[in-house]
């Protein structure tokens, strides 16, 4: 027996871990052999793995993905109380944990693919995987659907008045004004609405005559006006069940519906695109636009090359748009070497314009597309003045989907004083 062992026995410490100890802190009061110790250490290391991975994770990517600022590491000296400090520390840990994004995506895929539930609050998942984008309002999450299917006469007349005003602005510039409204899913596929949509909204969408919807009414009112309202609901509804017509995975219209919509619009504008318009179309795969599901999905879609028109797209052109409207996105210029007409067009739109513009471009020598969603009231006047002065289009097309009526951006443009300047 060694001297150390003799001393330990005197102190009541036995090396088989069974001896009582005088001090509660004494390690030998707790018998922990190599085997269980190793198990505990491995358990600890395994649990620590996500936190460790957090040191090597690109948190900026998470910030961009989740579109929010991540919590910062709190300063212990500046914390107003320890409770505040620990609360902020927890938020920081939550936001900087490794594997968070892939696990988050895994969870949303689990919700979506295994349970058939929508992984985000403002997206509904209907029959056969149809996704419907709702509003962000917590108290009224279905306004995106209800405003389509429940008539609101005051909004229709207010929109009609704005359309008249804007059309007259454009008319004074010597351009043709066309309002184009893309039918979206709640009107085209009301039978696919999920049961989580309140019954009265579902019934309203199923029973409404789309021609009595806001877009239909506005089309009716535009009869005899100096502008046209293009809303080809019946024609598109007749094709809605054809394969890959309007991908269920998409919120925005894509695939064949945009092709047919654009063809019809160009025909309305007396532009004959010819047979080359559908040439070499093939069924391919696109990335679905509902990234806000938390994960990316692919969708089957018709791809139209429009090769014969030799269209070139320049993103973020013309550059002066940025000067007057710095948050503009989805804007660009399509120039066709072999267009169906020699006219130039200006396409002002909401987010649906990005998906329709490539199908309109073959009809024009040049097509300038600008997404107005981020336009502010204070920018509207200067922006519109520049647009009309710089582009001088033959045709102005204001494009939204049926859910984009009323359009706040249209109101902004009509409230500007461009009329006075133009005169």
């Amino acid at each position: 027996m060694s001297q150390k062992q003799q001393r330990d026995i005197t102190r009541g410490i036995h090396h088989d871990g069974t001896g009582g100890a005088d001090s509660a802190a004494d390690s030998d009061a707790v018998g922990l052999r190599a085997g269980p110790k190793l198990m505990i250490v491995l358990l600890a290391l395994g649990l620590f793995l996500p936190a460790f991975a957090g040191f090597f994770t690109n948190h900026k990517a998470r910030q961009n993905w989740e579109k929010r600022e991540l919590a910062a590491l709190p300063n212990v000296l500046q914390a107003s109380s320890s409770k505040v400090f620990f609360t902020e520390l927890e938020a920081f840990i939550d936001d900087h944990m490794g594997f968070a994004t892939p696990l988050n995506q895994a969870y949303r895929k689990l919700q979506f693919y295994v349970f058939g539930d929508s992984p985000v609050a403002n997206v509904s998942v209907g029959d056969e995987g149809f996704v419907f984008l709702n509003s962000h309002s917590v108290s009224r999450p279905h306004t995106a659907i209800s405003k389509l299917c429940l008539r609101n006469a005051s909004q229709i007349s207010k929109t009609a008045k704005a359309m008249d005003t804007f059309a007259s602005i454009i008319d004074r510039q010597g351009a043709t004004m066309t309002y184009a409204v893309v039918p979206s899913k709640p009107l085209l596929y009301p039978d696919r609405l999920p049961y989580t949509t309140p019954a009265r909204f579902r019934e309203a969408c199923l029973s409404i005559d789309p021609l009595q919807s806001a877009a239909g009414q506005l089309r009716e009112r535009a009869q005899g006006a100096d502008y046209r309202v293009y809303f080809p609901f019946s024609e598109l509804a007749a094709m809605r069940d054809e394969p890959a017509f309007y991908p269920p995975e998409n919120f925005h219209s894509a695939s064949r519906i945009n092709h047919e919509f654009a063809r019809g619009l160009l025909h309305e504008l007396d532009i004959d695109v010819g047979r080359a318009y559908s040439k070499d179309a093939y069924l391919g795969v696109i990335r679905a636009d509902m990234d806000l599901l938390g994960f990316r999905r692919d969708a089957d879609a018709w791809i139209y090359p429009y090769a014969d028109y030799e269209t070139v797209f320049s993103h973020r052109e013309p550059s002066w748009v940025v000067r007057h409207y710095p948050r503009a996105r989805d804007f660009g210029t399509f120039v066709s070497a072999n267009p169906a007409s020699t006219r130039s067009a200006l396409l002002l739109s909401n987010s649906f314009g990005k998906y329709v513009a490539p199908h309109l471009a073959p009809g024009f020598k040049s097509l300038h597309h600008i997404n107005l969603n981020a336009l502010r009231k204070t920018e509207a006047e200067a922006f519109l003045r520049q647009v009309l002065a710089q582009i001088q289009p033959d045709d102005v097309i204001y494009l939204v989907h049926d859910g984009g009526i009323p359009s706040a951006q249209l109101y902004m443009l009509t409230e500007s004083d461009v009329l006075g300047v133009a005169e």
Partner: protein
Amino acid sequence: MVFSTTSFLFVFLPLFLLCYAVLPWRNLTALIFSLLFFAWGEGAYVLLLLATIGFNYWVGQRLEGSAYRSRFLILGVTLNILVLAYYKYFGFLIASVLEIPVPEQMIPHLPLGISFFIFQSISYLLDVYRRDSPKARSYFDLALYIAMFPQLIAGPIVRYSTVAEALRHRKISSYDVYRGITLFVLGLSYKVLIANNAAEVADMTFSLARGQLSTANAWVGISAYTLQIFFDFAGYSLMAIGIGRIMGFHFPKNFDFPYQSRSITEFWRRWHISLSSWFRDYLYIPLGGNRHGKLRTYANLFTVFLLCGLWHGAAWTFVLWGVFHGSILALERAGLGRVLRGLPRALQHAYALLLVMIGWVIFRAETVAQGSYYLKAMFSSVPARGIGFERLVSAENLFFMLLGCLFSLPVLEGTRMFRNAEDLAAGNTTNSVGVRAGVGASVSVSNTWVWLRAVLGGLVTIALFGLCAVYIMSGTYNPFIYFRF
């Protein structure tokens, strides 16, 4: 800090386990981490915790051999109750009972787990006084017993005698670690997968305005809450027991499948066992129990459950809930129980479950008025108005709630790994893995099936933990309903 958060699971717990395993002073490590755990949520109130521990230690030292031990006991218990009363019931007493308007700043903050650690302190003093337990050998022993983080904020309420010896002398075997991990993961799954999903449905239903609450919705909502409260609380208890097991402590089981009870009497033998036994040993029996005639027995039951209800929260709904259960217990004792035993088993189960669910309506309601109209909706025929089942209950919610219905029954008790019941201590069975020589020791061919079962169980545990991690990381709805205790 809640167990089912990233901060606890992936930072605090691994750091603690690493220090506990590697550093030589395990009790001190456990105490420091426990105080840090408390301070994390309560900041400076950790001083209150330390002060109550110090006071109870001082009193405890005088309960053995002192001539005035009964007076010290009265002092100790009274002061503990006063501390609890001040922090928990002052606002209720002033604002709700006496209806004196008082500014918000004057109502004291309710420290986390105060109901639990005060009750543990009282049980310590009473056990020492009755000589059922030795007094703590040091302040640190008592501090570790009271403040130990696994059971600090939500129990189980552990008696000092259960851990007195283990504080000074405990062995941790591989089986303890293995079992601790499985219990912890099982508890985490209960909480994150079942309780949280049920909570979404329950919270949505209980937030419906009067005109939106149909009979069907009311039953869906209370069914969800019945699952939520059990799996939330039982899950937390299992996590506490699991961590305690890894540390070398054997905490008692706290739930024994209460929803398979056939009477309310039986329910209270299965639900929150540590609390009901506390009230039995320290209140019901000292009041006389059932030794002084029928009327006195009923009065004692009524009193105990009135206070039990009050323990759960400072609100009239909790008082009513306690009165509700106390009344039924008295009725069962008075003869209803005998009648019940004559009924078919299925009816007995239905009776017990129905009364428990009615009790949960009262317990869950924010106000007495809400409880009243909710019960009215359950038992009258109110048609649905726009809130369909699909909006209330998603497929995910429904899946986990159905699992909850299944696991509220003892379906796992046949498995060695996932049973909730007290498992055989390591060494009592020759087939337990890792009993003698630790994990990895060579085993005979006849133990192959044991090893296979262990490996399969391990894989299931890892898969469950992975699924829980997915849910936790996604930042899903994660309330802990007993947090306010």
